[in-house]
């Protein structure tokens, strides 16, 4: 069952809202900066959302305060998303819409902060006693509260595939008739757990991340937030794009290292192609996971070479945003939808010397051309993979 995509939006280091991101991509202006996150002394680059710290939540949401929810709030204000949701609630009823969010670390930044100021009893100080914040469903709870959607809601947390998998679950919910539409999204914000955690694995680069470059030496952690409305096709009259397919798989190999042959990645790609009833040749553009880690890029190139002709255009957009982890899936889904809408395929920013050992070459410069069908990959720790395929609705 193909599902229509309604309004969508994204906020990341590459820009707050679609227009800013489009401009950054068009002008090849990276959102990465030297690490200037308060309280973090790592020598690296990060994808921080400008002035996120000064975003204030309305007082009725004060009990939900966290950096992650500030980002969720900021993202929901962009591109008329709240107006679209109000119309959708009017059309379908607030209880016929679901909420499925993706995140890797939820509001853990707030928990980290609470731990720096514990009481002698080891309890949290009063201002940190926020039960609906210190849990994995914090993004889902927040978005349901702000949007007024009262249908079923859940939060998916499968590391870096989280907010790609939201499309798979939403697709099943709608196809099953559980709801008529789903607000999907993903939110992950900069926090110490992730920065020092990836540093402990020696995966963090001291430079701007260089996906698919032979000199690539690790990832830049980013933060981001994105949303999309998914509904049965007849419910969105002016829909331009559809979710044509999704594929989910597990590597069954290692907790933090991808399968050396890219087995799980290829299975996810195959399942997405099968569901969309498309052949690899029908895909005009692939937005890669492309983290700029040694292993990911080599293995993803190998996986792609097993299915796609060398002429297929594929790029990583992490050079604009950094790796937004649990929000990467939705950010890159939105970037892929933007390529469909504006006939502009982003290249691979910061890739200057493509790794000559790779079996698949990536697109380096932006290319203006019509895109009918496009794919996006997301691969996470625990060997958790998801691939999505989007396409134009009208011929």
């Amino acid at each position, binding site marked *: 069952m193909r599902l229509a995509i309604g309004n969508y939006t994204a906020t990341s280091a590459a820009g707050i809202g679609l227009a800013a991101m489009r401009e950054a991509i068009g002008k090849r202006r990276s959102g990465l900066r030297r690490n200037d996150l308060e309280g*973090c002394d790592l020598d690296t680059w990060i994808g921080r959302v400008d002035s996120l710290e000064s975003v204030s939540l309305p007082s009725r949401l004060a009990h939900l305060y966290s950096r992650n929810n500030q980002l969720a709030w900021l993202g929901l204000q962009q591109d008329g998303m709240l107006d679209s949701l109000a119309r959708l609630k009017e059309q379908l009823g607030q*209880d016929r819409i679901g909420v499925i969010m993706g995140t*890797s670390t*939820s509001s*853990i930044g707030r928990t*980290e902060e*609470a*731990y*720096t100021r514990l009481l002698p009893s080891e*309890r*949290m100080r009063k201002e*940190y*006693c*926020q*039960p609906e914040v*210190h*849990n*994995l*469903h*914090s993004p*889902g709870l927040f978005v*349901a509260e702000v949007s007024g959607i*009262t249908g*079923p*809601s*859940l*939060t998916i*947390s*499968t*590391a870096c595939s989280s907010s790609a*998998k939201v499309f*798979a679950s939403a697709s*099943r*919910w709608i196809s*099953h008739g*559980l709801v008529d539409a789903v607000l999907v999204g993903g939110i992950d914000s900069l926090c*110490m*757990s992730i920065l*020092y*955690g*990836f*540093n*402990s*694995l020696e995966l963090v680069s001291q430079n701007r991340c260089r996906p698919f470059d032979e000199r690539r030496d690790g990832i830049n952690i980013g933060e981001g937030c994105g949303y999309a409305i998914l509904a049965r096709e007849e419910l969105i009259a002016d829909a331009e794009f559809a979710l044509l397919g999704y594929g*989910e*798989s*597990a*590597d*069954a*190999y*290692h*907790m*933090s290292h991808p399968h050396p042959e890219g*087995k*799980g990645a290829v*299975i996810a790609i195959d399942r997405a192609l099968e569901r969309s009833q498309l052949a690899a040749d029908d895909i005009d553009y692939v937005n890669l996971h492309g983290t700029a880690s040694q292993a990911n890029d080599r293995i993803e190139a190998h996986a792609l070479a097993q299915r796609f002709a060398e002429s297929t255009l594929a790029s990583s957009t992490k050079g604009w945003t950094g790796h937004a982890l649990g929000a990467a899936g939705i950010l890159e889904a939105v970037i892929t939808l933007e390529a469909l809408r504006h006939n502009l395929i982003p290249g691979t920013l910061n890739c200057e010397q493509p790794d000559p050992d790779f079996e698949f070459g990536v697109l380096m410069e932006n290319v203006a051309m019509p895109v009918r069908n496009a794919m996006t990959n997301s691969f996470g*720790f*625990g*060997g*958790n993979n998801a691939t999505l395929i989007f396409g134009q609705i009208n011929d």
Partner: protein
Amino acid sequence: MTDVDIAGLGVWSEHFSNWDGFCAVLAGSAGTQSAALTPELIPPKERRRAPLAVKMAVEVMDQACRMAAVEPSEVATVFASGMGDMQITDYMCRTLATSPRMISPTKFHNSVHNASTGYWSIATHSHSPANAISGYSHSAAVAILEGAVQAVEEEVPVLVAVLEMAAPAPFKSVYDSDHPFSAALLLTPAGYHASPVASVRLGVASGAVDDPPLPTIHGVDLSNNFAARLLSLFTAIAQQGNATLQFPLSRNATLSLSIAAGHAVRTANA
């Protein structure tokens, strides 16, 4: 309406370590202290690295597959927890507060919410879709709904595992539970399994409800454990009758489960 069968069950707490143990405690016998968890499915080398939360999940997932006599590699997985692995979160936050560069890389990669399904897929050599979700206090009901919809839509058995750990001291400010609990249900499309232990019809409606009351189990207090809300369902299945239970899915959505007794539970845990 969604119709699925429950082909197998797994359950673990400090006072009962499998389905037989749970039934005995339900029937009035005193629970015994569960032995340390050593899920045999995970190879010994991996098991040493596996955190407690992973062991709690994999143990009950394995129990459910064994009860159903279903090959573990054939099932898709949905893991759910409201609070996640609080032991690791506690470790991470304490270390970050004092010496952030000392974070253990193994503990960090084990900190992902999908660690349990990651270890499961590695142990069972399964490339099946693996999910890890949260519905905060309603994680158990949300996971059953998510698993049932996936089972029907994808026509595959879906292994649902739910757990909550004992809260470390700082977390007691927001989640006051001292006792860990985990449980698993192997959900299949109706008619997929020859001898399911129960058939379930799920319905979702608007409106708020409270969770059904928990069975009184002598000497065991799991009342604050989000995952243990499943014990009302497990009790209904143990009692081999027909029952309808209602669980909150969120503040204003309700899941109703109409349970019809199936085949008597096979004692495959031993």
